[in-house]
């Protein structure tokens, strides 16, 4: 089973490299990140055994990535909304 996960990760790597040579506009980023997230999930669930771990481990691991999303979204919400109201830029 580990070998199957390994092969899936290798195929994901090949696909993400292949896709990068074509211009799909902003979709390049979406495809690239979707593949990376899928690969990370495969590693976390199977290689890191979270699939067979207790609920507590699920919550701790999930909370880490959830907090990361809070970091990204609140910071970008700040930077992207600067200048929306006249005179508040910088």
């Amino acid at each position, binding site marked *: 089973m580990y070998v199957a996960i390994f092969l899936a990760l290798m195929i994901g790597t090949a696909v993400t490299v292949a896709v*990068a040579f074509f211009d799909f506009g902003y979709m390049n980023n979406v495809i690239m990140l979707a593949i990376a997230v899928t690969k990370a999930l495969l590693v976390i669930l199977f290689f890191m055994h979270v699939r067979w771990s*207790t609920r507590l481990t699920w919550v701790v691991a999930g909370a*880490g990535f959830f907090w990361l999303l809070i*970091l990204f979204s609140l910071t970008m919400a700040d930077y992207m909304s600067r200048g929306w109201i006249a005179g508040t830029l910088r």
Partner: protein
Amino acid sequence: MSDSYSEAPTAGGMPGRVAIQPPGNPHDGHSHPHHPKLQHHFDDMAQQAEASTLGMWVFLVTEIMFFGGLFMAYLLYRWANPMGFQEASSHLNVWLGAFNTAVLIFSSLTMAMAVRAAQTSAPAKSQVMWLVGTMILGAVFLGVKVVEYADKFKHHTVPGPNFVWEGQYPAAAEIFYSIYFCMTGLHALHMIIGIGIMLWITWMAARRQFDSSYYTPVEVAGLYWHFVDIVWIFLFPLLYLIGRHYGGH
């Protein structure tokens, strides 16, 4: 695969659990009331393993935030300089990056096999073999990284007074390469520490410390190794691949 897990102690920490374990190691000769590796503040081996795994995950959450700050910097500066980042990225060698990605994924497989070998009480020889394989692959990754870094010094794409950029966006390119060196450098440092941990684990495995009743150190070292792999899974496309379709050099 899954049947070995149903045997594995994973539901630790339940109150009212029977505290006394049968002797884990039949080669002991005399019967202990509990496993020699069981520390006194745990009820049983399952609880001890669960506590160690959970503790490692808490550490990995701090690592997520550690690398997360750098990913945040990448996101913000790329948002501010989208074209400059694409131009800068197109100068990285995508094939070396892809090769290193494959090497790290392969090392995650050998690491998972090392944990499995310990978990299934495989002979120390095969545990050591998987761990040494993991270390060799980690060393190959770092070797390729040395070649890549040397190339950047040669072509003056290292941020600082000697930074030279012929393209359209020299300022953004310097920011990109600052982030590149911070992130890949921190990642490489984690790889070096990881190989150090593996040396220690290999030494323990060679001394027949691990079997199905006690393999937590291999498991926890594996969690660290796989985490470092995950960081690279994100670094590779975000650093190497964003400029490919943009007049790739």
